[in-house]
Protein backbone atom coordinates (compact mmCIF):
# COMPACT_ATOMS: atom_id res chain seq x y z
CA UNK A 1 0.00 0.00 0.00
CA UNK A 2 1.36 3.40 -1.02
CA UNK A 3 2.01 5.95 1.72
CA UNK A 4 -0.16 9.03 1.71
CA UNK A 5 1.40 12.50 1.49
CA UNK A 6 0.56 13.12 5.16
CA UNK A 7 2.31 9.94 6.21
CA UNK A 8 5.41 10.89 4.20
CA UNK A 9 5.34 14.39 5.75
CA UNK A 10 5.07 12.81 9.21
CA UNK A 11 8.04 10.54 8.43
CA UNK A 12 10.13 13.63 7.74
CA UNK A 13 8.61 15.98 10.29
CA UNK A 14 8.98 13.79 13.39
CA UNK A 15 12.74 13.09 13.13
CA UNK A 16 13.46 16.71 12.14
CA UNK A 17 11.44 18.02 15.12
CA UNK A 18 13.20 15.64 17.50
CA UNK A 19 16.56 16.80 16.12
CA UNK A 20 15.65 20.48 16.51
CA UNK A 21 14.42 19.96 20.08
CA UNK A 22 17.66 18.10 20.91
CA UNK A 23 19.74 20.95 19.45
CA UNK A 24 17.72 23.52 21.40
CA UNK A 25 18.15 21.53 24.62
CA UNK A 26 21.88 21.39 23.90
CA UNK A 27 22.08 25.16 23.36
CA UNK A 28 20.11 25.83 26.56
CA UNK A 29 22.46 23.51 28.47
CA UNK A 30 25.41 25.50 27.04
CA UNK A 31 23.84 28.81 28.21
CA UNK A 32 23.23 27.43 31.69
CA UNK A 33 26.56 25.64 32.21
CA UNK A 34 28.78 28.09 30.32
CA UNK A 35 30.33 25.19 28.41
CA UNK A 36 32.14 26.05 25.18
CA UNK A 37 30.89 23.17 23.06
CA UNK A 38 28.03 24.84 21.21
CA UNK A 39 25.89 23.30 18.44
CA UNK A 40 26.97 26.07 16.04
CA UNK A 41 30.67 25.54 16.84
CA UNK A 42 30.26 21.80 16.43
CA UNK A 43 28.65 22.13 13.02
CA UNK A 44 31.41 24.57 12.02
CA UNK A 45 33.97 21.96 13.13
CA UNK A 46 32.09 19.34 11.13
CA UNK A 47 32.27 21.59 8.07
CA UNK A 48 36.03 22.00 8.57
CA UNK A 49 36.41 18.23 8.95
CA UNK A 50 34.64 17.56 5.68
CA UNK A 51 37.17 19.76 3.91
CA UNK A 52 40.17 17.87 5.30
CA UNK A 53 41.90 15.13 3.32
CA UNK A 54 43.10 13.59 6.60
CA UNK A 55 39.47 13.11 7.69
CA UNK A 56 38.48 11.33 4.50
CA UNK A 57 41.52 9.07 4.52
CA UNK A 58 40.93 8.26 8.22
CA UNK A 59 37.28 7.64 7.55
CA UNK A 60 38.03 5.42 4.56
CA UNK A 61 40.47 3.26 6.49
CA UNK A 62 38.10 3.00 9.47
CA UNK A 63 35.30 1.81 7.19
CA UNK A 64 37.66 -0.63 5.50
CA UNK A 65 38.62 -2.13 8.88
CA UNK A 66 34.94 -2.29 9.85
CA UNK A 67 34.16 -4.11 6.59
CA UNK A 68 36.97 -6.57 7.22
CA UNK A 69 35.78 -7.25 10.76
CA UNK A 70 32.20 -7.59 9.61
CA UNK A 71 32.95 -9.78 6.59
CA UNK A 72 35.26 -12.14 8.44
CA UNK A 73 33.02 -12.57 11.49
CA UNK A 74 29.90 -12.96 9.36
CA UNK A 75 31.35 -15.62 7.08
CA UNK A 76 32.88 -17.57 9.98
CA UNK A 77 29.59 -17.35 11.94
CA UNK A 78 27.53 -18.43 8.92
CA UNK A 79 29.77 -21.40 8.12
CA UNK A 80 29.85 -22.54 11.74
CA UNK A 81 26.08 -22.04 12.16
CA UNK A 82 25.49 -24.24 9.10
CA UNK A 83 27.92 -26.87 10.40
CA UNK A 84 26.22 -26.77 13.82
CA UNK A 85 22.80 -27.14 12.21
CA UNK A 86 24.03 -30.19 10.33
CA UNK A 87 25.77 -31.87 13.23
CA UNK A 88 24.88 -32.00 16.90
CA UNK A 89 28.48 -32.88 17.78
CA UNK A 90 29.77 -29.68 16.16
CA UNK A 91 27.05 -27.72 17.96
CA UNK A 92 28.05 -29.18 21.32
CA UNK A 93 31.75 -28.50 20.70
CA UNK A 94 31.13 -24.91 19.59
CA UNK A 95 28.72 -24.03 22.38
CA UNK A 96 31.36 -23.45 25.14
CA UNK A 97 33.76 -21.84 22.64
CA UNK A 98 31.16 -19.28 21.60
CA UNK A 99 30.24 -18.63 25.25
CA UNK A 100 33.89 -17.93 26.11
CA UNK A 101 34.40 -15.68 23.07
CA UNK A 102 31.20 -13.77 23.93
CA UNK A 103 32.41 -13.24 27.50
CA UNK A 104 35.77 -11.72 26.48
CA UNK A 105 35.94 -8.08 27.61
CA UNK A 106 36.44 -5.96 24.47
CA UNK A 107 39.04 -3.67 26.02
CA UNK A 108 41.05 -6.62 27.33
CA UNK A 109 41.10 -8.11 23.83
CA UNK A 110 42.41 -4.82 22.42
CA UNK A 111 45.11 -4.59 25.09
CA UNK A 112 46.27 -8.15 24.44
CA UNK A 113 46.26 -7.85 20.66
CA UNK A 114 48.17 -4.56 20.51
CA UNK A 115 51.04 -6.31 22.24
CA UNK A 116 51.47 -8.77 19.39
CA UNK A 117 49.83 -7.30 16.29
CA UNK A 118 50.02 -4.05 14.31
CA UNK A 119 47.32 -1.66 15.58
CA UNK A 120 45.45 -1.72 12.28
CA UNK A 121 45.08 -5.51 12.37
CA UNK A 122 44.18 -5.33 16.06
CA UNK A 123 41.15 -3.13 15.44
CA UNK A 124 39.77 -5.36 12.67
CA UNK A 125 40.36 -8.51 14.71
CA UNK A 126 38.70 -7.04 17.80
CA UNK A 127 35.64 -6.28 15.71
CA UNK A 128 35.66 -9.82 14.38
CA UNK A 129 35.90 -11.41 17.83
CA UNK A 130 33.11 -9.30 19.31
CA UNK A 131 30.79 -9.68 16.33
CA UNK A 132 31.26 -13.40 15.72
CA UNK A 133 29.27 -14.73 18.74
CA UNK A 134 26.43 -12.27 18.04
CA UNK A 135 26.13 -13.42 14.44
CA UNK A 136 26.49 -17.08 15.39
CA UNK A 137 23.76 -16.79 18.04
CA UNK A 138 21.44 -15.10 15.54
CA UNK A 139 22.13 -17.38 12.58
CA UNK A 140 22.08 -20.74 14.39
CA UNK A 141 18.33 -20.74 15.20
CA UNK A 142 17.68 -19.70 11.61
CA UNK A 143 19.77 -22.62 10.29
CA UNK A 144 18.08 -25.01 12.73
CA UNK A 145 14.69 -23.69 11.66
CA UNK A 146 15.09 -24.78 8.04
CA UNK A 147 12.15 -26.99 7.15
CA UNK A 148 12.85 -30.70 7.75
CA UNK A 149 10.40 -31.54 4.98
CA UNK A 150 12.35 -29.50 2.46
CA UNK A 151 15.58 -31.14 3.54
CA UNK A 152 14.05 -34.61 3.21
CA UNK A 153 12.68 -33.79 -0.25
CA UNK A 154 16.10 -32.54 -1.32
CA UNK A 155 17.65 -35.80 -0.06
CA UNK A 156 15.08 -37.87 -1.92
CA UNK A 157 15.85 -35.88 -5.06
CA UNK A 158 19.51 -36.76 -4.64
CA UNK A 159 20.77 -33.24 -3.89
CA UNK A 160 24.36 -33.15 -2.65
CA UNK A 161 25.52 -31.00 0.30
CA UNK A 162 26.38 -28.00 -1.87
CA UNK A 163 23.01 -28.12 -3.60
CA UNK A 164 21.19 -28.40 -0.25
CA UNK A 165 23.12 -25.37 0.94
CA UNK A 166 22.36 -23.38 -2.20
CA UNK A 167 18.72 -24.34 -2.74
CA UNK A 168 17.44 -25.09 0.79
CA UNK A 169 19.51 -23.50 3.57
CA UNK A 170 20.49 -20.15 2.06
CA UNK A 171 17.03 -19.22 0.66
CA UNK A 172 15.39 -20.17 3.99
CA UNK A 173 17.94 -18.21 6.00
CA UNK A 174 18.02 -15.18 3.66
CA UNK A 175 15.84 -12.82 5.76
CA UNK A 176 17.80 -13.59 8.93
CA UNK A 177 21.15 -13.22 7.10
CA UNK A 178 20.11 -9.86 5.65
CA UNK A 179 18.79 -8.45 8.95
CA UNK A 180 21.91 -9.46 10.86
CA UNK A 181 24.17 -8.12 8.15
CA UNK A 182 22.56 -4.67 8.39
CA UNK A 183 22.69 -4.35 12.17
CA UNK A 184 26.12 -5.99 12.27
CA UNK A 185 27.77 -3.56 9.89
CA UNK A 186 26.97 -0.44 11.91
CA UNK A 187 27.95 -2.27 15.12
CA UNK A 188 31.24 -3.16 13.43
CA UNK A 189 31.94 0.53 12.70
CA UNK A 190 31.35 1.42 16.36
CA UNK A 191 33.57 -1.41 17.63
CA UNK A 192 36.40 -0.59 15.26
CA UNK A 193 36.34 3.11 16.24
CA UNK A 194 36.52 2.16 19.95
CA UNK A 195 39.44 -0.16 19.29
CA UNK A 196 41.20 2.53 17.23
CA UNK A 197 40.99 4.98 20.12
CA UNK A 198 42.70 2.52 22.44
CA UNK A 199 45.21 1.16 19.92
CA UNK A 200 46.09 4.64 18.54
CA UNK A 201 45.75 3.37 14.99
CA UNK A 202 47.27 5.68 12.41
CA UNK A 203 44.88 6.94 9.70
CA UNK A 204 41.71 6.31 11.66
CA UNK A 205 38.71 8.16 13.05
CA UNK A 206 39.54 6.75 16.48
CA UNK A 207 43.00 8.33 16.42
CA UNK A 208 41.54 11.64 15.24
CA UNK A 209 39.17 11.51 18.22
CA UNK A 210 42.07 10.77 20.56
CA UNK A 211 44.07 13.71 19.16
CA UNK A 212 41.06 16.06 19.37
CA UNK A 213 40.65 15.08 23.03
CA UNK A 214 44.36 15.66 23.76
CA UNK A 215 44.29 19.05 22.02
CA UNK A 216 41.13 20.08 23.94
CA UNK A 217 39.15 20.40 20.68
CA UNK A 218 35.82 19.34 22.13
CA UNK A 219 33.75 20.62 19.21
CA UNK A 220 35.92 18.68 16.77
CA UNK A 221 35.56 15.59 18.98
CA UNK A 222 31.77 15.89 18.96
CA UNK A 223 31.83 16.56 15.19
CA UNK A 224 33.83 13.34 14.67
CA UNK A 225 31.31 11.48 16.81
CA UNK A 226 28.48 12.90 14.68
CA UNK A 227 30.20 11.69 11.52
CA UNK A 228 30.36 8.14 12.91
CA UNK A 229 26.73 8.29 14.06
CA UNK A 230 25.70 9.59 10.63
CA UNK A 231 27.44 6.72 8.83
CA UNK A 232 25.93 4.12 11.20
CA UNK A 233 22.43 5.58 10.69
CA UNK A 234 23.01 5.68 6.93
CA UNK A 235 24.15 2.04 6.89
CA UNK A 236 21.08 1.05 8.92
CA UNK A 237 18.66 3.00 6.72
CA UNK A 238 20.11 1.91 3.36
CA UNK A 239 20.52 -1.65 4.60
CA UNK A 240 16.94 -1.88 5.88
CA UNK A 241 15.59 -0.50 2.59
CA UNK A 242 17.63 -3.08 0.70
CA UNK A 243 16.43 -5.89 2.97
CA UNK A 244 12.81 -4.76 2.55
CA UNK A 245 13.22 -4.58 -1.22
CA UNK A 246 14.95 -7.96 -1.49
CA UNK A 247 12.75 -9.85 0.95
CA UNK A 248 9.45 -8.36 -0.22
CA UNK A 249 6.99 -11.14 -1.16
CA UNK A 250 6.70 -11.36 -4.96
Amino acid at each position, binding site marked *: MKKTRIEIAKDILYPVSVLLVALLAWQIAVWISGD*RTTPVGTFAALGELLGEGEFWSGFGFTLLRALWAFGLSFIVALVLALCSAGSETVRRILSPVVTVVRSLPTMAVVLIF*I*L*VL*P*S*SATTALVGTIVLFPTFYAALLPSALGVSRDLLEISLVCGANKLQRLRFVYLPSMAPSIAENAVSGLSLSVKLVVSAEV*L*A*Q*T*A*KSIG*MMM*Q*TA*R*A*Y*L*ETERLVALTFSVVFVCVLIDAVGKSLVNALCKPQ
Partner: protein
Amino acid sequence: MKKIILFVLTFALALCTFSACGAPDEDTVNIYLPDGAPALALVSIFDRTEIAGQKVKFTIVPSDYISSAVTNGEADLAIVPTNLAANLYNKNMGYKFVSANTHGNLYVVGKSDLNSFADLKGKRVGVIGQGQVPDLVFRSLLVREGIEYETSDTPIDGKVAISYVAAAANLFPSLNADKIEFGVFAEPAVATALSKVEGTKIAMDLQQQWGGGYPQAGLVAKNEIDDAFIKGLFDALREDPDFAENDPTQALELIKACMRESTQTVIAKLDADIVARCNIKLVPAEECKDKVIEFLSALGELAPNAIGGKVPDDNFFRIVK
Protein backbone atom coordinates in the same frame (compact mmCIF):
# COMPACT_ATOMS: atom_id res chain seq x y z
CA MET B 1 11.49 -12.13 54.11
CA LYS B 2 12.67 -11.93 50.50
CA LYS B 3 11.42 -8.34 50.28
CA ILE B 4 13.35 -7.35 53.40
CA ILE B 5 16.57 -8.91 52.07
CA LEU B 6 16.03 -7.17 48.73
CA PHE B 7 15.44 -3.84 50.49
CA VAL B 8 18.56 -4.22 52.65
CA LEU B 9 20.70 -5.14 49.63
CA THR B 10 19.37 -2.21 47.59
CA PHE B 11 19.97 0.16 50.49
CA ALA B 12 23.53 -1.17 50.95
CA LEU B 13 24.23 -0.74 47.24
CA ALA B 14 22.91 2.83 47.29
CA LEU B 15 25.04 3.57 50.34
CA CYS B 16 28.16 2.23 48.58
CA THR B 17 27.40 4.37 45.54
CA PHE B 18 26.89 7.57 47.52
CA SER B 19 29.93 6.97 49.72
CA ALA B 20 32.08 7.30 46.57
CA CYS B 21 30.91 10.89 46.15
CA GLY B 22 33.10 12.69 48.65
CA ALA B 23 32.62 16.46 48.71
CA PRO B 24 35.80 18.29 47.68
CA ASP B 25 37.44 20.35 50.40
CA GLU B 26 37.13 23.99 49.31
CA ASP B 27 40.03 25.16 51.48
CA THR B 28 42.55 22.72 50.06
CA VAL B 29 44.73 23.57 47.07
CA ASN B 30 44.64 20.55 44.78
CA ILE B 31 47.80 19.90 42.81
CA TYR B 32 47.63 17.24 40.08
CA LEU B 33 50.56 15.55 38.40
CA PRO B 34 50.68 12.99 35.60
CA ASP B 35 52.34 9.71 36.45
CA GLY B 36 55.93 9.19 35.31
CA ALA B 37 58.74 11.72 35.13
CA PRO B 38 56.49 14.77 35.74
CA ALA B 39 55.51 13.31 39.11
CA LEU B 40 59.17 13.60 40.13
CA ALA B 41 59.04 17.36 39.59
CA LEU B 42 57.34 18.00 42.93
CA VAL B 43 58.18 14.77 44.77
CA SER B 44 60.37 16.53 47.36
CA ILE B 45 57.30 18.29 48.82
CA PHE B 46 54.77 15.44 48.59
CA ASP B 47 54.90 14.98 52.37
CA ARG B 48 53.74 18.55 52.99
CA THR B 49 50.15 19.10 54.03
CA GLU B 50 50.44 22.88 54.12
CA ILE B 51 52.24 25.45 51.99
CA ALA B 52 52.22 29.20 52.66
CA GLY B 53 49.52 28.68 55.28
CA GLN B 54 47.19 26.82 52.93
CA LYS B 55 46.23 23.16 53.03
CA VAL B 56 47.57 21.29 50.02
CA LYS B 57 46.92 17.90 48.45
CA PHE B 58 49.02 16.21 45.78
CA THR B 59 47.36 13.71 43.47
CA ILE B 60 49.16 11.70 40.79
CA VAL B 61 46.90 10.51 37.99
CA PRO B 62 47.46 8.34 34.89
CA SER B 63 49.07 10.61 32.30
CA ASP B 64 46.11 10.61 29.91
CA TYR B 65 43.81 11.87 32.68
CA ILE B 66 45.75 15.06 33.36
CA SER B 67 44.03 17.10 30.63
CA SER B 68 40.62 16.17 32.09
CA ALA B 69 41.80 17.21 35.58
CA VAL B 70 42.45 20.74 34.31
CA THR B 71 39.54 21.09 31.90
CA ASN B 72 37.01 20.02 34.52
CA GLY B 73 38.60 22.35 37.06
CA GLU B 74 39.57 19.65 39.59
CA ALA B 75 43.18 20.84 39.61
CA ASP B 76 44.12 24.23 41.08
CA LEU B 77 47.66 23.64 39.92
CA ALA B 78 48.96 20.89 37.64
CA ILE B 79 52.08 19.72 35.91
CA VAL B 80 51.13 19.42 32.24
CA PRO B 81 52.95 19.09 28.91
CA THR B 82 53.95 22.59 27.74
CA ASN B 83 51.77 22.31 24.63
CA LEU B 84 48.73 21.52 26.79
CA ALA B 85 49.54 24.60 28.91
CA ALA B 86 49.54 26.73 25.73
CA ASN B 87 46.30 25.11 24.63
CA LEU B 88 44.63 25.89 27.98
CA TYR B 89 45.73 29.50 27.73
CA ASN B 90 44.70 29.94 24.09
CA LYS B 91 41.27 28.51 24.90
CA ASN B 92 40.82 30.87 27.89
CA MET B 93 40.47 28.09 30.41
CA GLY B 94 41.77 30.16 33.29
CA TYR B 95 45.27 28.69 33.73
CA LYS B 96 48.69 30.28 33.23
CA PHE B 97 52.18 28.86 32.98
CA VAL B 98 54.22 29.43 36.15
CA SER B 99 57.31 27.30 35.67
CA ALA B 100 59.05 24.71 33.51
CA ASN B 101 59.78 21.61 35.56
CA THR B 102 60.92 18.83 33.22
CA HIS B 103 63.41 19.62 30.49
CA GLY B 104 63.17 16.57 28.25
CA ASN B 105 63.19 12.88 29.11
CA LEU B 106 63.01 11.35 25.63
CA TYR B 107 65.46 8.76 24.36
CA VAL B 108 65.73 6.50 21.34
CA VAL B 109 66.27 2.94 22.54
CA GLY B 110 67.36 0.08 20.27
CA LYS B 111 69.68 -2.87 19.88
CA SER B 112 72.22 -1.02 17.72
CA ASP B 113 74.03 2.30 17.77
CA LEU B 114 72.87 5.49 16.11
CA ASN B 115 75.41 8.07 15.04
CA SER B 116 72.92 10.42 13.45
CA PHE B 117 69.28 10.62 12.37
CA ALA B 118 70.37 9.50 8.90
CA ASP B 119 71.01 6.04 10.40
CA LEU B 120 67.26 5.75 10.99
CA LYS B 121 66.49 5.70 7.26
CA GLY B 122 64.99 2.37 6.24
CA LYS B 123 64.29 1.50 9.89
CA ARG B 124 61.05 1.11 11.83
CA VAL B 125 60.72 3.33 14.89
CA GLY B 126 57.99 2.86 17.49
CA VAL B 127 56.74 6.14 18.95
CA ILE B 128 54.40 6.67 21.90
CA GLY B 129 51.45 9.04 21.72
CA GLN B 130 50.71 10.21 18.19
CA GLY B 131 50.46 14.00 18.15
CA GLN B 132 51.79 14.27 21.70
CA VAL B 133 55.11 15.79 22.81
CA PRO B 134 57.29 12.66 22.27
CA ASP B 135 55.99 12.30 18.71
CA LEU B 136 56.19 16.02 17.92
CA VAL B 137 59.73 16.35 19.32
CA PHE B 138 60.94 13.33 17.37
CA ARG B 139 59.32 14.42 14.11
CA SER B 140 60.47 17.99 14.60
CA LEU B 141 64.06 16.76 14.87
CA LEU B 142 63.62 14.59 11.76
CA VAL B 143 62.32 17.61 9.83
CA ARG B 144 65.20 19.73 11.09
CA GLU B 145 67.68 17.09 9.89
CA GLY B 146 65.92 16.78 6.53
CA ILE B 147 64.95 13.15 7.09
CA GLU B 148 61.71 11.99 5.47
CA TYR B 149 59.29 9.86 7.49
CA GLU B 150 56.02 8.03 7.01
CA THR B 151 53.56 6.17 9.22
CA SER B 152 54.07 2.51 8.44
CA ASP B 153 54.52 -0.87 10.11
CA THR B 154 56.99 -1.97 7.43
CA PRO B 155 60.40 -0.50 6.57
CA ILE B 156 60.55 2.08 3.76
CA ASP B 157 63.67 2.69 1.69
CA GLY B 158 65.23 6.09 2.39
CA LYS B 159 62.58 7.03 4.96
CA VAL B 160 61.90 6.48 8.65
CA ALA B 161 58.86 4.26 9.16
CA ILE B 162 57.01 5.45 12.28
CA SER B 163 54.67 3.06 14.04
CA TYR B 164 52.51 4.54 16.81
CA VAL B 165 51.42 2.99 20.08
CA ALA B 166 49.42 4.34 22.99
CA ALA B 167 51.86 3.47 25.75
CA ALA B 168 55.46 2.44 26.23
CA ALA B 169 54.31 -0.99 27.44
CA ASN B 170 53.21 -1.74 23.88
CA LEU B 171 56.68 -1.01 22.51
CA PHE B 172 58.57 -3.51 24.66
CA PRO B 173 57.27 -6.66 22.88
CA SER B 174 57.74 -5.08 19.43
CA LEU B 175 61.35 -4.21 20.27
CA ASN B 176 61.89 -7.66 21.74
CA ALA B 177 60.51 -9.42 18.66
CA ASP B 178 62.46 -7.10 16.29
CA LYS B 179 59.22 -5.78 14.80
CA ILE B 180 60.77 -2.34 15.26
CA GLU B 181 64.46 -1.48 15.30
CA PHE B 182 64.13 1.51 17.65
CA GLY B 183 61.62 2.99 20.04
CA VAL B 184 61.21 6.55 21.32
CA PHE B 185 60.74 6.20 25.07
CA ALA B 186 60.21 8.67 27.88
CA GLU B 187 62.17 7.97 31.04
CA PRO B 188 61.37 6.11 33.38
CA ALA B 189 60.07 3.77 30.63
CA VAL B 190 63.61 3.84 29.18
CA ALA B 191 64.86 2.01 32.26
CA THR B 192 62.08 -0.57 31.92
CA ALA B 193 62.96 -1.11 28.25
CA LEU B 194 66.64 -1.57 29.07
CA SER B 195 65.86 -4.15 31.73
CA LYS B 196 63.05 -5.97 29.92
CA VAL B 197 64.36 -6.17 26.37
CA GLU B 198 67.66 -7.98 26.12
CA GLY B 199 70.44 -6.30 24.19
CA THR B 200 68.93 -2.81 24.15
CA LYS B 201 70.74 0.42 24.88
CA ILE B 202 70.14 4.14 24.72
CA ALA B 203 71.00 4.89 21.10
CA MET B 204 70.21 8.60 21.11
CA ASP B 205 69.46 11.37 23.60
CA LEU B 206 66.82 13.62 22.01
CA GLN B 207 67.60 16.42 24.47
CA GLN B 208 71.16 16.61 23.18
CA GLN B 209 69.92 16.54 19.59
CA TRP B 210 67.59 19.45 20.38
CA GLY B 211 70.53 21.44 21.66
CA GLY B 212 70.46 20.97 25.41
CA GLY B 213 66.93 20.13 26.41
CA TYR B 214 63.54 21.79 26.05
CA PRO B 215 60.75 22.73 28.47
CA GLN B 216 58.72 19.53 28.02
CA ALA B 217 56.33 20.01 30.93
CA GLY B 218 55.58 22.70 33.45
CA LEU B 219 53.34 23.91 36.22
CA VAL B 220 50.12 25.74 35.40
CA ALA B 221 48.04 27.52 38.01
CA LYS B 222 44.46 28.71 38.05
CA ASN B 223 44.24 32.49 37.89
CA GLU B 224 42.50 32.52 41.31
CA ILE B 225 45.52 30.99 43.08
CA ASP B 226 47.43 33.79 44.77
CA ASP B 227 51.08 34.58 44.17
CA ALA B 228 51.96 33.95 47.83
CA PHE B 229 51.02 30.30 47.50
CA ILE B 230 53.04 29.82 44.30
CA LYS B 231 56.02 31.60 45.85
CA GLY B 232 55.71 29.34 48.90
CA LEU B 233 55.64 26.31 46.61
CA PHE B 234 58.78 27.46 44.79
CA ASP B 235 60.57 28.12 48.10
CA ALA B 236 59.63 24.64 49.34
CA LEU B 237 60.91 23.05 46.12
CA ARG B 238 64.21 24.95 46.33
CA GLU B 239 64.88 23.55 49.82
CA ASP B 240 65.88 20.14 48.46
CA PRO B 241 66.10 20.21 44.63
CA ASP B 242 68.11 16.97 44.45
CA PHE B 243 65.85 14.97 46.76
CA ALA B 244 64.78 12.40 44.14
CA GLU B 245 68.31 11.86 42.88
CA ASN B 246 69.70 11.48 46.39
CA ASP B 247 66.91 9.28 47.72
CA PRO B 248 65.15 7.57 44.80
CA THR B 249 63.71 4.82 47.02
CA GLN B 250 61.93 7.31 49.25
CA ALA B 251 60.83 9.29 46.17
CA LEU B 252 59.18 6.19 44.70
CA GLU B 253 57.42 5.49 48.01
CA LEU B 254 56.06 9.04 48.06
CA ILE B 255 54.85 8.71 44.47
CA LYS B 256 53.05 5.46 45.31
CA ALA B 257 51.42 7.13 48.31
CA CYS B 258 50.14 10.04 46.19
CA MET B 259 48.66 7.92 43.41
CA ARG B 260 44.96 8.44 42.90
CA GLU B 261 42.81 5.73 44.48
CA SER B 262 42.77 2.42 42.58
CA THR B 263 45.68 3.42 40.33
CA GLN B 264 49.29 2.27 40.31
CA THR B 265 52.37 4.11 39.16
CA VAL B 266 54.01 3.11 35.86
CA ILE B 267 57.42 3.64 37.47
CA ALA B 268 58.74 0.13 38.00
CA LYS B 269 62.02 1.21 39.61
CA LEU B 270 63.87 4.40 40.36
CA ASP B 271 67.56 5.09 40.85
CA ALA B 272 69.82 8.13 40.65
CA ASP B 273 70.63 7.55 36.94
CA ILE B 274 66.96 7.30 35.98
CA VAL B 275 66.14 10.48 37.90
CA ALA B 276 69.07 12.27 36.23
CA ARG B 277 67.74 11.26 32.80
CA CYS B 278 64.36 12.81 33.65
CA ASN B 279 65.99 16.31 33.67
CA ILE B 280 63.90 17.68 36.52
CA LYS B 281 64.59 21.29 37.45
CA LEU B 282 62.40 24.16 38.60
CA VAL B 283 62.76 27.12 36.24
CA PRO B 284 60.25 29.93 36.92
CA ALA B 285 58.36 31.37 33.94
CA GLU B 286 60.41 34.58 33.72
CA GLU B 287 63.61 32.56 33.26
CA CYS B 288 62.36 30.10 30.63
CA LYS B 289 60.13 32.34 28.49
CA ASP B 290 62.32 32.31 25.39
CA LYS B 291 62.89 28.56 25.51
CA VAL B 292 59.16 27.90 25.94
CA ILE B 293 58.30 30.14 22.98
CA GLU B 294 60.98 28.47 20.85
CA PHE B 295 59.73 25.01 21.84
CA LEU B 296 56.07 25.83 21.20
CA SER B 297 56.94 27.44 17.85
CA ALA B 298 58.68 24.23 16.76
CA LEU B 299 55.72 22.06 17.83
CA GLY B 300 53.24 24.52 16.30
CA GLU B 301 54.97 24.36 12.92
CA LEU B 302 54.30 20.63 12.85
CA ALA B 303 50.83 20.63 14.42
CA PRO B 304 49.28 24.06 15.13
CA ASN B 305 46.35 22.46 16.96
CA ALA B 306 48.74 20.88 19.45
CA ILE B 307 49.40 24.34 20.94
CA GLY B 308 45.87 25.68 20.51
CA GLY B 309 46.37 27.26 17.09
CA LYS B 310 49.04 29.86 17.86
CA VAL B 311 52.08 30.54 19.99
CA PRO B 312 50.70 32.23 23.13
CA ASP B 313 51.44 35.87 23.92
CA ASP B 314 53.31 37.24 26.91
CA ASN B 315 50.32 36.98 29.25
CA PHE B 316 50.65 33.20 29.09
CA PHE B 317 53.53 33.45 31.54
CA ARG B 318 52.67 34.17 35.14
CA ILE B 319 55.56 35.96 36.77
CA VAL B 320 55.61 35.44 40.53
CA LYS B 321 57.56 38.09 42.46
